[in-house]
């Protein structure tokens, strides 16, 4: 009863919610795309240069691993502020949808790269050896063996990363990032409109559920074991 009195549902303005949802989706979609490209690249290099792998390079691996660890240890909110100059350089702004995508990618790509590295490690070494015996080049092995064999793991990794991005985009609202997080912050927190907060959180929950379901479905579809 208390709850009912305190929450004024009339404050929820759907004409604000929908564009904010769209912004969040755009940020997740665009940053996921760049994250996957960049993270795959870093993850593959990490894997190949690690011990006993095709391009074993302890120095390269050590350096790259160090950078990845650093990026992963900085909290997202702080990372956003730290890389603002770079963001401005890349997109011309540090605000809104555009200004949020670079920090999202910088934060999520190292995370995804580790997931890629782990998935590639799961690939049966015997299959790699068989490909070598058949005369496959390293590039053939990456493209035709590793990426194929690790596909379920990579899809699961993309799903986890997408879900992580949802919470990152919400955090981005703190420094004017736009989207649902921004809405929750400005109306829900600063203007005490609890109803707006609840609706945005509900939207985020639905988003995460949908992403997870879609990801699980894809993983199942591509599993052959």
């Amino acid at each position, binding site marked *: 009863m208390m709850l009912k009195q305190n929450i004024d549902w009339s404050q929820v303005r759907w004409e604000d919610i929908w564009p904010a949802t769209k912004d969040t989706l755009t940020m997740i979609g665009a940053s996921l795309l760049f994250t996957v490209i960049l993270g795959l690249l870093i993850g593959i290099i990490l894997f190949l240069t690690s011990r006993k792998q095709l391009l074993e390079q302890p120095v390269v691996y050590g350096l790259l691993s160090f950078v990845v660890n650093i990026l992963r240890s900085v909290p997202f909110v702080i990372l956003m502020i730290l890389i603002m100059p770079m963001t401005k350089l890349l997109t011309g702004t540090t605000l809104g949808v555009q200004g949020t995508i670079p920090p999202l990618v910088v934060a999520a790509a190292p995370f995804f790269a580790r997931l890629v590295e782990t998935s590639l490690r799961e690939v*049966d070494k015997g*299959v790699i050896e068989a490909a*070598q*015996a*058949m*005369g496959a080049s390293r590039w053939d092995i990456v493209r035709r063996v590793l990426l194929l064999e690790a596909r379920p793991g990579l899809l699961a990794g993309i799903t986890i990363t997408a879900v992580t991005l949802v919470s990152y985009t919400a955090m981005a609202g703190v420094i004017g990032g736009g989207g649902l997080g921004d809405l929750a912050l400005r109306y829900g927190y600063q203007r005490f409109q609890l109803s707006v907060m609840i609706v945005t959180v509900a939207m985020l929950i639905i988003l995460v559920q949908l992403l997870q379901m879609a990801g699980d479905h894809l993983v199942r579809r*591509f599993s*052959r074991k």
Partner: protein
Amino acid sequence: MEAVKNISLTINKGEIFGIIGHSGAGKSTLLRCVNLLERPTSGTVKVGEVELTRLSSTQLQKERRRIGMIFQHFNLLSMATVRDNIAFPLELAKLPRTAVKQRVDELLKLVGLEQHADKYPAQLSGGQKQRVGIARALANNPDVLLCDEATSALDPQTTNAILSLLMDINQKLGITILLITHEMHVIRAICDRVAVIDGGEIVEMGDVLDVFLKPQHSITKDFVSQIADSFDPRELIDTRSGRLIKINYVGEITYEPLLFNAVKSTSVQFTILQGTVSRMKNTPYGQLVIEFIGDDGEIDRVLDELRAKGLEVGDLK
């Protein structure tokens, strides 16, 4: 650490050569040296006229297409169908799509997997998986097929089916087969020559028949006893009154009534105490321990007659 050392081995074109050894003896390393999956620190590897140890990595990749390889655990792409697994080496060789399809169909037929072309490896039995492995290894018409414990993960019946497929391939396509195993049974079933490896070195080598019938090294004797009777007939020497004779024979005479013919005009009688009559690849052979009872002079004449027929005869000591 040296896994193999001082090994000089020449495999003849078209033969099935077996390398047998216990696990850790270095046989797997030796096999991997042939296609340089394992690069020897010193020495050369020559396949046909090409010295592989001299090639650049791109040249080596190309040369490896002439050397097929199959594995104990099959090593198939789990995410690709049977068809795509067999097509893999053809695609690496950049064969046009229609040629790939045609060749894959041929290979599916060769290994008897036409029905399973669109299945994934997880849906196949071990024997079927190895057939896919064989088809894949043969795709680029290699001159040599390397078999890394190819039957060790299979049950006995499937092992025999795969072995006869390998022998078929060897005969039909003239492919040289080099296999490693720890099972003497495999050597006996299909190999022409055998090398016994222990501690990274070859301790005995020769025609399977010779090595099998007259093993010299103790490791070889171990392996031979895997398929021989574990009973040692020498234990009988003190308990029997007649003469104990060991007889070995090889070839078509195996199936002739030689013993009967030799004794029928004499008063000598005989009892078989222990014996094996079998085949090594396509060659029949027999190993018997026989007790002859009768006059010593007469027994000697019987033995001479057997020797004259080409049997190897000697007193059991």
